[in-house]
């Protein structure tokens, strides 16, 4: 691996080797950019560092403390972001749907959420390119902007067969995929072996994560990944430009000098870093003159409904992501709420299933009895689009982490539209199980996926960065991860995060965004 000295001013420092950061690095490195990625977590060796085991996988999650509040606090830890080279996709399930064209203009169409400063059409070529690179396997996709996938659909498990039969009987269309799991060998990555541990990190390397998809090419083109390096502060000069990143490595504070900085630490850590970078010139943190940093953080309503069948289904086999439906994705006024949801199979392993049983109210003998029945259940999950709200936000807590840095606090409260969406989605999933002939049905509420917190928009009054991911007021600082997304639709976000970075890289390479241009905080971006 190429290495750079701290004092050597590189073209770009990227904070976070996850979905957004790694794609950005790989694209730019191919055009000669000199890049250092600072990654707080380790540089993984899947064979040595990961296990086929739920409880033994906590080290791949971001488990440093975070405070959660609001009326509907969102548990983080294993249910959220990753920690280490590859980021959260190391333990993501593997679903890689695109957003729908409507997602980019929910305010115009439905009067809710926010319009994006970019359109689906601008992202489409990048969706297609990233789908080939991961590569994505699935059936032809009839929803949103209809499209096909480069790899054929995977075979499905007994648990998914039951769900699919129920969906057909209930009039709900489902399709196999789309998953970023190789169906066939792909370069040096073998075929999936259907072992079911996708959320614990794929030791086989069949499931895509930047560690196996984009990082090898980035390294081959001279990118340095500095693992074990926690960015503490983005530094700025008197002119208001950033000069590099102060970070902690092996207990030592160091500074990497750079001509430009991109933050890609995901929806909690990116706003935290912007806030922790407060200085005399930026007393409220970077990009926060209008009190926008950390606002509009979203999760998706991820309620689970399980159906019980007389036959054994052994849902631990095959990847948890198997079949999905986007039939309910768009607004339907007759449902009584704006926007929609998708439905996907989930197939939790034993600890995940025990949490489901507990959430349904069972403990002691009842819990043991439900658990003995593990092999008879199949689980569907919804992804309900929950709307962005300025008060659902990341702030700095009074507590500090091991480095002495203030930790993030995340407050979350559902709106009435959110509650109605979740309730409706659960009803549809119950109807699927009834139509499938399930003997019994268990329903629980939970959340998934973080988005927002440093969203892109049209003006600094209502966003943190512009259509080119550039933080308002700081011409050489970019946000290149899930925190830049203004809405999150009812689709899993990773593919969109990668496509966004791919688009940003293209614009930087073509010099359509000039990382050296000077602008002030009140200007609107030039039309592009």
């Amino acid at each position: 691996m190429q290495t750079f000295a701290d004092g050597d001013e590189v073209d770009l420092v990227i904070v976070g080797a996850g979905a957004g950061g790694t794609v950005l690095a790989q694209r730019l490195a191919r055009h000669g950019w000199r890049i250092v990625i600072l990654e707080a977590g380790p540089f993984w060796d899947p064979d040595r560092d990961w296990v086929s085991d739920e409880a033994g996988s906590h080290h791949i999650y971001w488990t440093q403390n975070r405070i959660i509040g609001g009326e509907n606090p969102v548990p983080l830890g294993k249910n959220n972001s990753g920690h280490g080279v590859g980021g959260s996709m190391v333990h993501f399930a593997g679903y890689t749907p695109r957003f729908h064209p409507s997602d980019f203009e929910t305010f115009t169409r439905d009067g809710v959420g926010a319009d994006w400063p970019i359109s689906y059409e601008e992202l489409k070529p990048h969706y297609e390119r990233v789908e080939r690179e991961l590569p994505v396997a699935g059936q032809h996709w009839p929803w949103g902007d209809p499209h096909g996938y480069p790899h054929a659909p995977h075979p499905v498990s007994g648990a998914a067969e039951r769900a699919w039969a129920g969906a057909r009987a209930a009039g709900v269309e489902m399709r196999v995929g789309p998953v970023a799991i190789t169906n066939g060998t792909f370069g040096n990555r073998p075929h999936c072996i259907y072992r079911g541990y996708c959320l614990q990190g794929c030791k086989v390397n069949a499931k895509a994560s930047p560690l196996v998809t984009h990082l090898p090419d980035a390294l081959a083109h001279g990118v340095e990944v500095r693992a074990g390096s926690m960015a503490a502060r983005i530094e700025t000069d008197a002119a208001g430009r950033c000069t590099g990143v102060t970070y902690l490595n092996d207990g030592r504070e160091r500074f990497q000098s750079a001509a430009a900085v991109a933050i890609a630490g995901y929806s909690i850590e990116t706003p935290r870093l912007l806030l922790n970078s407060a200085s005399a010139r930026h007393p409220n943190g970077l990009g926060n003159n209008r009190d926008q940093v950390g606002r509009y953080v979203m999760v998706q309503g991820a309620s689970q409904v399980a159906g019980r069948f007389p036959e054994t289904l052994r849902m631990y086999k095959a990847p948890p992501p198997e079949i999905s439906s986007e039939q309910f994705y768009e607004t339907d006024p007759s449902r009584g709420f704006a926007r929609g949801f998708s439905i996907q199979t989930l197939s939790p392993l034993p600890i995940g299933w025990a949490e489901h049983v507990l959430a349904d109210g069972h403990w002691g003998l009842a819990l043991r009895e439900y658990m003995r029945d593990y092999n008879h259940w199949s689980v569907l999950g919804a992804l309900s689009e929950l709307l962005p709200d300025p008060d659902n936000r990341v702030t700095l807590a009074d507590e500090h982490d091991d480095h002495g840095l203030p930790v993030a606090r995340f407050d979350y409260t559902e709106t009435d539209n959110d509650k109605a969406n979740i309730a409706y989605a659960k009803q549809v999933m119950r109807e699927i199980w009834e139509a499938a002939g399930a003997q019994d049905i268990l329903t629980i509420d939970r959340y998934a996926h973080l988005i927002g917190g440093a969203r892109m928009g049209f003006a600094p009054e209502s966003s943190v960065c512009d259509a080119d991911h550039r933080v308002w007021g700081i011409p050489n600082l970019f946000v290149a991860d899930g925190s830049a997304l203004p809405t999150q639709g009812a689709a899993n976000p990773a593919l969109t995060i990668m496509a966004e970075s791919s688009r940003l890289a293209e614009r930087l390479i073509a010099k359509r965004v000039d990382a050296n241009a000077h602008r002030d905080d009140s200007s609107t971006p030039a039309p592009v």
Partner: protein
Amino acid sequence: MSAPRNGHEERGTDPRPENPKRLPRQRRGVVPQMRGRYPDWDVLTQVDHWDEVTRRVVLARVDDVPPIRFFDESEVRSLGTFCDAVMAQTEEPRIPVLSFIDDKLFCGRSEGFQYASMPDDQETWRLLARGLDERARSLEATSFAEAGVDVCIRIIGELQRGELSGGVWERLDPQLTWKVVMSSVLDAFYSHPWAWNEIGFGGPAYPRGYARLGVGLKEAWEGEEAFELDPVRDVDERGLDL
């Protein structure tokens, strides 16, 4: 550590009342309390097919149970009783749930989040021990561990439903406490290979993988289910939800 016993001794192969009628006795390997649905399934016979790193992590749970270092003796008594009761571990062999939790707290392994209204996990567990004892004393017992199974179950039900107040419970939201501690209890119990035997989980399958995915299918090496019963009706009929 003492645990609530229900006083029913096992007679031959007769089922005890806390189990469904005809739930088989384990014939191969170990399951907690020796009854499960897969009497001939021992996931530990498969360890040679697991990768080395996974094997080390899983076998340590059986062969290398961590010593108690975080909790003091009195905490061990009340929390041991609590862990046994919430998992219905009425007799040996038991999965040593509290030992794994103690190890996690001693080593300071965090879950990655803390409710704004709650203390950190270490403090939560210590306060839980005190809160259980306080409540037991208010019900005329000397401590939670000495209170007997009915009182323990009553107190745990109050915790789960958020019905505890006063004393420790002014600082500790009972329902959030329930969520926080049960997440660790479930993690400890269902990560143990004896629990995998009980529920017929095939376990780690790298590098071998799974090949027979369809309805009703199993790999040749997986366990056969010998007993099947819909728990929703059964639990309801036997009034097990407390």
